[in-house]
């Protein structure tokens, strides 16, 4: 009985489109190893934890003017969560190379672009789910804690709530931001292949430009960096106050990150196709 079922299975799978098979295979790989689950959990926990710490430590005493963007403050944890997301994406590619699994994968599925796309879809899908939980937790923390710390509507602070348009944009945008960071990391990892070098390169791309921005004294350079670098421009999506004064609009900033991610993904895909595994 069971023998017949097992005999049928490969038959059924092969009848499906190769894209579906690839997706299913990548899903199985991620589902059945313990690492990705822990990293996704880590993303959620670290993001919410840091956000709660930031929100919990910020007070606006009576009589003081606080130039704080409550939504952005509530989403501080994304800065840390993105490192875990990058690690997950990098390992999805690089673990296959370090174990030699990639040769099995490409033997079973010779269309490398399909494999790469399937990996990207599965990783981004999982990151979006984890990101949604992380962002939701952070927003709830801000919603519950900030009014008690002096950030009240009476003093001109908007409530951190998804019912408020700009906060909704920041929340949805932050989830998408994490997804784009995953894509950017996948692209770089496909080019570099070694896990340590890949994660180093990804974190350098994520943090290099903000560091340069911190030291940039020329306003021309500050604006250039705020407009065109992946993390600085991408995180403008979190702004809900003073949007007019930003170097780039929130969605425009996320678009810049999407551009970076797209280029990295394309380059990664091309390299994957052209190079021996």
């Amino acid at each position: 009985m069971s023998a017949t079922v097992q005999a049928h299975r490969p038959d059924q799978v092969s009848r499906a489109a190769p894209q579906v098979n690839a997706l299913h295979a990548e899903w199985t790989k991620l589902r059945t190893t313990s690492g990705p689950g822990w990293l996704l959990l880590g993303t959620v926990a670290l993001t919410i934890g840091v956000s709660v710490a930031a929100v919990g430590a910020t007070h606006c005493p009576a009589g003081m003017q606080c130039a704080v963007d409550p939504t952005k403050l509530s989403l501080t944890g994304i800065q840390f969560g993105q490192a875990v997301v990058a690690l997950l994406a990098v390992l999805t590619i690089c673990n296959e190379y370090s174990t030699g699994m990639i040769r099995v994968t490409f033997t079973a599925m010779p269309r490398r672009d399909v494999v790469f796309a399937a990996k990207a879809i599965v990783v981004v899908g999982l990151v979006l789910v984890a990101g949604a939980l992380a962002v939701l937790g952070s927003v709830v923390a801000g919603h519950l804690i900030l009014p008690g710390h002096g950030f009240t509507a009476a003093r001109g602070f908007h409530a951190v709530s998804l019912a408020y348009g700009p906060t909704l944009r920041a929340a949805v945008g932050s989830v998408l931001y994490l997804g784009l960071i995953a894509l950017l990391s996948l692209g770089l990892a496909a080019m570099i292949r070694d896990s340590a070098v890949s994660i180093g390169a990804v974190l350098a791309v994520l943090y290099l430009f903000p560091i340069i921005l911190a030291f940039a004294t020329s306003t021309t350079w500050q604006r250039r960096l705020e407009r065109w670098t992946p993390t600085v421009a991408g995180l403008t999506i979190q702004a809900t106050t003073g949007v007019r004064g930003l170097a780039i609009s929130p969605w425009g900033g996320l678009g810049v990150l999407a551009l970076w991610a797209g280029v990295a993904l394309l380059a990664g895909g091309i390299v994957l196709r052209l190079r021996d595994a």
Partner: protein
Amino acid sequence: MTADTRSIPRSGAGAGAAAARGGFGPLLHSEWTKFRTVRGWVIGMVVAAILTVFVGLFAAGNANSSCQNSPNGPVLSGKACLPYIPHGPGGEVVSDSFNFAHQPLTGNGTITVRVLSFTGAHANITNGHGAEVGSSLVPGLAAWSKVGIIIKQSLHQGSAYAAMMVTGGHGVRMQYDYTGDTAGLPGKVSAANPRWLRLTRSGDTITGYDSTDGTHWTRVGTVTLTGLPATVQAGLFATSPAYTVTNSSFGGNSNNGGPSQATGVFGDLTVSGTAAGAKWADVAVGGGGPVGTGPGGSSAGSGPAGFTEAGGTYTLTGSGDIAPVTPGPDSGFPTATIEQSLAGAFIGLIAIVVVAAMFFTAEYRRGLIRTTLAATPRRGAVLAAKAIVAGGVAFVTGLVAGTVAVAVGVHLENSNGQVVLPVPALTEIRVVVGTAAVLAIAAVFAVALGAVLRRSAAAVTIAIVTVVLPFLLVALNAFPPGVGDWLLRLTPAAGLAIEQSIPNYPQVASTINPAVGYYPTPPFAGFAVLCAWAAAALVLAVCVLRRRDA
């Protein structure tokens, strides 16, 4: 042929046997050989050095200041924009602007005064906006507004001095030669809380006293101003630094500031040691008259010009500051620090951490660890050798890159019109060598993490996130100041405090921001925190290595 036969016994009798006997030298040598012969790691270190230098030079050289001295005049840039920059007796760049009612004091003498009232006014700064042009000042004192008595070498900016003063928020202070600051009586001046101040000169020594009643005096401090001339200027002074509101808008901060002024009303002014009946002359040193008066200053008794004398009561109003210039936007001219040229070390650190983590984890990936541990069964010694090699290479890389970055960076900063705040040679050495040491300890930290986790990606992520990210988030004001300070005290990022070249002077209001050179911990305390983290990781690594099968 002979070479081949000779080489076999040599390696057996040399490195191998010595390692078996427990010699640490051959072990170190073999780890160094492993490092040296992996091309990717050597390239990684070169990349680290190149990134350190180039990002540092960008940080040092991206400023572009321009100015126009008159509305239709030529646009100037760089050095041409700089005002006169006074230097204090210790060589540091200083602010020295105040209103000074003075008379010469020859030889030894004493000046005593009673502060009757102390008020001030500052620019009207509303949330998110700078001072409104043309708007009147609103009453209020800056924390370091100060009025009092001063004995000063000459009327030149930057000359030596000692002063007793009341301040807006820090009680009575004795200050001298810009950097010295001693606390006296706390609290604010009021009718119920009067303050008497006294300065006594005896040779090169000046002693400051304060009192609440004019009869019972407490010595606040004694300072020696070497080379003080026989005739000095003594008298009343008033000054008040720019009133600043920092808007930390989380992702970029803006400083909104405007001028402020302080007014002191004095009585019972006595000076011993000067010619009887000498007239008080008023001069605005460094343009330190009341807000709105020109740099030419004021003359005695002419209304708003700042100094009046009536029936033994003296009123003096001034603005500016008598203090060291600190990095940041408050000084009125572009300042730079030597550590600004070392900004690239953060990026170099990423490359170094990657190589250092791989230095251990690569052994697991290739199974080499079993050979290594078979040759040297003492696992702690293997870890120590790897840590020393990785740390040593990182140190040398950082030292070379840091020296080049600072040498070229300071030149760039000077040439594009920034004032590089000078520091003693020992401080400069501490900054450059300290940065190399931070890179070395970070490398050791990464080696230990690699040994614990056996996975390079995880080790690299943890090392980078704990060393670089806290610095970055605080520098970009992603955290409110309180949280940010604690992040920079407790995480491995604390080690970067060793780069701070200009001390946190208590008498200058400044916000802690590592991007302009301020850390919440003293340099070596911060470095010790990083070392503690690395040591903890090493201990954990030794325990794990001993217990676990390779």
